[in-house]
């Protein structure tokens, strides 16, 4: 069953969260936030009134709500053709750097970073790569750092790997335990997971490639613009930026700074 809240309810919630918890949901994309709240209400079987009551009277409730409202869905080699494009159009240039620095902003439970590491390994580049993978969610980062991927997802992940042009036996990259798979240490050792909030935190390093995929869609346009600004500042000269397949730089003020490397796969490069 789907819960349903009105635009007025949503506005009320944003105001309440701001005043009670000093957290700004106002720049999150309204339609999906509305849907998340509705979904949360029906899952818990509570009314909107009850939600407001808990937010006001129970300090521990807000972090729980925030986790429930965020979307962490991810896959290994999501959009396999994106990974093919990376390998063909971006890796040859990355290979010219002595140390390759990559940032996955909004990495969720790590699947995207694991995929990148596997691709780099197969290209013979992993040993001189440093992959920084960040997210706002502690819970997701813990899973990522442990290398845990749900076993039921490995069938899809394997199919994606093959479509992405993977050449090895995919099962070599993980071991199966009960109902989860653990990504091998060899793949994970060049990845550093840490917490970073794209809305409130700052530039922390300089990268040749920044991937920020399927994160921007949860922000409204003004916030997207700020976040793209942060990503742009984090790029080395002539660095690459990859965003989600259905995300766009065109609606931001940073568009002119980039040349398009692959329009379909949303890979861009800072102009010199």
């Amino acid at each position, binding site marked *: *069953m*789907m819960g*349903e809240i*009105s*635009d007025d309810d949503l506005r009320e919630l944003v105001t309440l969260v701001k005043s009670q918890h000093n957290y700004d949901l106002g720049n999150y*994309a*309204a*339609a*999906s936030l*509305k*849907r*998340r709240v509705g979904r949360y209400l029906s899952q818990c079987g509570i009314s909107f009134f009850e939600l407001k009551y808990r937010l006001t009277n129970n300090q521990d409730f807000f972090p729980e709500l925030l986790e429930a409202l965020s*979307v962490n*869905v991810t*896959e290994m080699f*999501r*959009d*396999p*053709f994106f990974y093919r494009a990376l390998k063909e159009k971006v890796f040859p240039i990355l290979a010219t750097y002595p140390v390759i620095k990559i940032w996955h902003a909004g990495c969720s439970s790590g699947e995207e970073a694991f995929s990148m590491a596997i691709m780099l390994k197969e290209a013979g580049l992993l040993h001189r790569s440093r992959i920084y993978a960040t997210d706002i969610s502690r819970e997701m980062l813990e899973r990522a750092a442990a290398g845990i991927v749900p076993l039921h997802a490995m069938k*899809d992940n394997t*199919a*994606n790997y093959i*479509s992405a042009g993977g050449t090895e036996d995919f099962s070599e990259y993980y071991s199966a335990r009960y109902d989860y798979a653990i990504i091998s240490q060899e793949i994970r050792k060049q990845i550093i997971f840490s917490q970073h909030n794209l809305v409130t935190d700052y530039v922390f390093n300089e990268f040749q490639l920044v991937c920020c995929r*399927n994160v*921007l*869609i*949860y922000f409204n*346009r003004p916030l*997207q613009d700020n976040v793209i600004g942060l990503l742009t500042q984090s790029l080395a000269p002539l660095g690459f930026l990859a965003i*989600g*397949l*259905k*995300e*766009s730089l*065109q*609606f931001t003020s940073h568009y002119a700074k980039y040349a398009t490397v692959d329009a379909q796969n949303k890979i861009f490069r800072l102009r010199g």
Partner: protein
Amino acid sequence: MSGQSHIRNLVVIGGSMGSFPVLLALFASLPQEYSATVIVVVHRPKNVKSQLEQMLCPDGRLKEPDDKEIMQPGGFYLAPQNYHLLVEPDGTIALDTAETINYSRPSIDATFLSAATAFGTRVTGVLLSGANKDGVEGLGAIISHGGRALVQDPATAMSAIMPGAAIEKLDGIEVYAPEEIITALIKSDIEYKNGKTE
């Protein structure tokens, strides 16, 4: 609320198995001057190359939108594989990669519900042939927000589960054969333009 948008009429169409022939016929029949905005949600596999928008509408009018794209009157939009498609009251498209709903992403229910709450009486929901019940709940939301609901006559559907469930569960729907659905959509657009409605 819905007064703020430039979108006057929004047609949201959902279908799965067996809906492609109907959609093909629909896009072949909608005149160039058709002025409603149309969103199509069909169940489709993810992570494969697909040119579905081209297949369903060879004249190129149907497109897969990017996130935050602004819908246009007379614009036709196809929900991309692996994303839910939602709409904002200001007429912006919002994509969402959240969990599948009833095993589907895109989910017809998600689009219908979001259209109903954002555009109320301006919405026409169309549920076509399909092999599951996605869309029934969303169509209910469209009706309860004062929108219009058209359902493909199960007798004409390759898979009758989806339209059948709508008919069983919902009051206030109009049941039509595919040609009649197409005629009804074109007719209501002409009526709207002649100022007979709204």
